[in-house]
């Protein structure tokens, strides 16, 4: 009858503190990713040290168990077993120098591999953790934005990159509010999965204007949106960008703006949970920029704790 293995046998290796320390280190790394970079390094050191101790103990316990199986039913070491045990380390006797050379070869190889591989891996992965680059786009003279009218502006957010950086936004001048001009600038990027949101309503292409600012062409097309809607999966928003139907998880992103020499300048984009009120009196629940489909508020927002962002307040 073959020996049964189950809970009757003591666990090998026995309980130890090292896995706990290893887990603490990993937790520290994960928390550090959210909170601070130095904590990541400290956590990594903790995890490596405790992991090494754990591995060492596990190997030692395993070797121990092989030499004397503890309490298993037919644990009588036969001559065959002992013979086998004798040659598990190879037919020849190992000298300390032999073991040292093997270890140092492996260690040196590991160090060389790490020196070569780590910068390469870092080069490939680190850009994913870089902060967001902010940009400013001159949309042309403010005269082109009459009060209360929606203008669809089309511009390049980074002329150096070229046509691939073409973006669209909807702009409305809300008039003066508390002696300051008020504009609503809504991004056309659907916050479901990033398709281009369209202004549902007439589009006055014959009144399109083209403005050249700093050799960059900006087109301005008057639109009369009843709402905004997305062609991809049917997301719908009201004219303040609040979700009214479909799969989007929040309101449409907005842009900050600046007024420079009588020109309207579009500044960084930010994400919006919801908007209460309308026009100049709107109360905007703004957050740092987040990708489409990511919640910004409530419990679901905790799933996206870190965002690459470098937004001026």
């Amino acid at each position, binding site marked *: 009858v073959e*020996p049964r293995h189950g809970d009757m046998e003591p666990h090998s290796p026995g309980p130890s503190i090292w896995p706990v320390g290893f887990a603490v280190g990993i937790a520290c790394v994960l928390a550090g990713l959210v909170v601070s970079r130095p904590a990541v390094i400290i956590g990594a050191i903790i995890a490596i040290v405790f992991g090494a101790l754990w591995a060492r103990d596990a190997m030692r316990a395993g070797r121990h168990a092989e030499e004397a199986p503890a309490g298993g039913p037919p644990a009588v070491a036969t001559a065959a077993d002992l013979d086998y045990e004798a040659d598990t380390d190879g037919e020849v006797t190992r000298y300390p120098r032999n073991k040292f050379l093997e270890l140092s070869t492996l260690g040196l190889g590991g160090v060389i591999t790490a020196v070569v591989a780590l910068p390469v891996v870092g080069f490939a992965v680190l850009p994913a953790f*870089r902060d*967001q680059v902010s940009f400013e786009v001159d949309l042309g003279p403010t005269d082109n934005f009459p009060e209360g009218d929606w203008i669809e502006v089309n511009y390049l957010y980074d002329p150096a990159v*070229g046509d*691939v950086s073409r973006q669209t936004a909807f702009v409305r001048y809300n008039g003066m509010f508390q002696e300051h001009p008020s504009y609503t600038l809504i991004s056309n990027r659907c916050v479901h*999965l*990033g398709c281009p949101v369209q202004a549902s309503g007439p589009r006055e292409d014959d009144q399109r204007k083209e403005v050249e600012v700093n050799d960059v062409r900006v087109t301005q097309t008057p639109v009369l949106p009843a709402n905004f809607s997305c062609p991809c999966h049917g997301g719908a928003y009201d004219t303040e960008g609040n979700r009214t139907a479909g799969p989007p998880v929040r309101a449409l992103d907005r842009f900050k703006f600046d007024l420079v020499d009588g020109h309207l300048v579009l500044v960084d984009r930010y994400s919006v949970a919801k908007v209460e009120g309308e026009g100049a009196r709107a109360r905007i629940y703004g957050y740092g920029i987040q990708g489409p489909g990511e919640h910004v508020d409530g419990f679901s927002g905790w799933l*996206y704790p870190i965002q690459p962002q470098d937004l001026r307040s």
Partner: protein
Amino acid sequence: MTVTPETRPPVPPPSRKKKRFTDRLIALVMVPVDWIDERSAIPRGVHWFLFRKVPSDSNWFHTLGSATLTAFLVQAGTGVILAFYYRPTPDEAYDSIRYITHDVTLGWLVRGMHKWGASVFIILLFLHMARVFLFGAYKYPRELNWVIGFTLLVLGMLQGFTGYLLPWDQTAYWATVVGINLNGTGPIVGPFLAQFLRGGDEIGPNTLTIFYAFHMLLLPGLIFFLILVHLYLVVRLGVSSPPWSPERAGAPRLDGEPRGPGLVRPRARGRFAR
């Protein structure tokens, strides 16, 4: 009348001229092969790989794996030729695709083979997977090969995702926008993954080159390597019988510890030897 050694007609002595000719023919082929075999054992390995026993009741369904391999090789071959002419920059990508389609001799054919062959590859992957599943060919001792095959399926679909952007037209652009943002909705790591795929905040030149590098170098290399391991395991473990065969698809397994001496648990030999 039964043929016995006594009654069998004597074998006529082979004509000297004919024998010399066949000998020379065999030598012509075999001597160089033997020369290589003696020094590398590669012909022996090829023999081991190709000339092996398969169940007598294996059938056409067993060829789906080879069909998938063929589809992949077609993708690899046509892909290399397309790379002669394709330029992965936002300003030139679409024009180079148009050039391949309209100006390069038979370019439309090679591009069409690559485009439609991609779908054929994925469809065959799934058919092959269905065959293995329905025949129970994933059972012991072939579980590892199922896992490798599944990894190949994922890599194949990643090839589809990365290759879809390369024509750089409206469909490609917006499909990739949606695809990357889908990745971005993954909890915790999603935003980083999306930014890694984009190579920045927004889709731009970096996205195209990253997808090109993945599609051209990283993923095909991984797929090639895993296919080799996949095939090695197929040859090592043998082809499984279909369900209607009197033979079982999976081998019976011992309870408890693995059989035979292992690298990690050499004691198993001593214990089970008794």
